[in-house]
């Protein structure tokens, strides 16, 4: 059996009085891609953002339950949130590069971690950009603004920026929904490459994407997980009626 990197038990989340998550039990295996699917507003982003504590930024949020990263409760009072976010990186739906050069974007986390050695930074930039499958497109203009790139290129630069700080887990919230099919496919292929080194948790509305690249799939509905299983099993042979309806496009 594979090693479980993140486990969550009976996780509830309240936005004020509204209970957005009603008891989530999930576990994510090392070096697998887990897809989270479900209709709009069912709580996928909310759940994803629990895993690196991005919900801490929102006022009036209450979280109960137990979320562990490698056996340690990440909501324990002595958790170093900054350290946690280095271990658990995040890619957002909208590409959000800093308005600096491509190079500076990628090495940003490293520079702030105190690395100044130019050769080391250059090397990290190249490795990360290659891993994010965008090196060939940008290697001649590393010092141009990242904002001058197309959306798909920007998103891959953002992925490189996360890879550069070498997280163990990468959270992705609909990373390809703002991109054209070609860019999406490029990113999907890249994720398959990255799987051998990272644990990836991916929110997507694209069923084809989930079935093509994920090992496991969790189906969310109104703040709970209806079904969580191997992607192949679930897509071919869903256990629950609700899952089947959703996969066949019968609601949502």
């Amino acid at each position, binding site marked *: 059996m594979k090693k479980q990197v993140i486990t969550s038990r009976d996780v509830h989340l309240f936005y004020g009085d509204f209970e957005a998550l009603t008891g989530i039990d999930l576990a994510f295996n090392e070096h697998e891609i887990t897809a989270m699917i479900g209709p709009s507003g069912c709580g996928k982003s909310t759940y994803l953002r629990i895993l690196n504590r991005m919900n801490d930024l929102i006022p009036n949020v209450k979280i109960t339950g137990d979320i562990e990263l490698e056996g340690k409760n990440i909501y324990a009072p002595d958790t170093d949130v900054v350290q946690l976010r280095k271990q658990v990186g995040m890619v957002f739906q909208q590409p959000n590069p800093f308005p600096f050069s491509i190079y500076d974007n990628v090495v*940003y986390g490293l520079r702030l971690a105190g690395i100044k050695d130019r050769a080391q930074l250059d090397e990290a930039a190249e490795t990360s950009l290659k891993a994010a499958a965008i090196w060939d497109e940008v290697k001649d203009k590393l010092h141009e603004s990242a904002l001058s790139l197309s959306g798909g290129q920007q998103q891959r630069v953002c992925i490189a920026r996360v890879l550069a700080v070498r997280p163990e887990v990468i959270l992705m919230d609909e990373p390809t929904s703002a991109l054209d099919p070609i860019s999406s496919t490029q990113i999907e292929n890249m994720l398959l490459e990255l799987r051998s080194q990272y644990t990836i948790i991916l929110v997507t509305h694209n069923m084809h994407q989930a079935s093509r690249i994920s090992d496991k799939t969790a189906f969310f509905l109104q703040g709970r997980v209806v079904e969580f299983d191997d992607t192949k099993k679930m897509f071919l042979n869903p256990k629950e009626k609700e899952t089947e309806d959703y996969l066949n496009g019968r609601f949502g």
Partner: protein
Amino acid sequence: MDAKQKDKLATGILYAIAGIIVLLLASLLGYILIQGLPHVSWHFLTSPAKAFEAGGGIGIQLFNSVYLLVLSMLISVPIALGAGIYLAEYAKANWITDVVRTAIEILSSLPSVVVGLFGFLVFVLQFNFGFSILSGALALTMFNLPLLTRNVEDSLRQVSFAQREAGLALGLSRWETVIHVVIPESLPGIITGMILGAGRVFGEAAALIYTAGQSAPALNFSDWNPFDIASPLNPIRPAETLAVHIWKINSEGIQPDAAAVSAGASAVLILAVLLFNILARFLGNRLYRKMTAES
């Protein structure tokens, strides 16, 4: 009239209004410069003023203006940065913050004469600083700080939440995100605001008449010890600035060439403020380009 014609008409009216504004501005500037520039010479810019005879310059007033500007910016820029960052990044949305914000808004719309009178009562009389550079710099700070603070806050708010999220998700602390992501992105706006503020301060008269005073004692430009009374750096000496000088000559000047001195001084003042504006644009653009690409 169909939509197309209406559009044409509206555009035409807008163009006309814009044209009138440009024309007004150009003729005002042109008038002041044409009247004043012939009187401006190196001698005029460097020699002291004369109270009763012709041939006086504006050297000391010019120096005073610059010194006061530097001093008041030295006081107000750090405070404005601190206050702006606090309001934009840390202040909770509660009634105290609302009160602070409203106070800043009211302060920034206070007429400068009122600020000057306040400065007179508090700094000149109460604190016993007298008519001095120090009183003047503090009054200018009162006058400038609210606008600078608002400018910093607004510039920081322009940075989208996604950028802050990106910083935090990379494992930066809140403070690091502010310092390394938000501030660099808003720096061009902040710099522009500061330079425009500097221009306003440079041309300010009303706030200074009763604080920095209306006399410009002779200075010894070879003595830079701030504790000597004749030193240009002495912060306790009275210091009439260029703008105050212009006001004074026009209200009670008895020099035979008062009109010429006033015209010349106005031209210099306008040129300086113009320079600040151009500098603001130039530096703002440059910084933005620098920050957004090669750095």
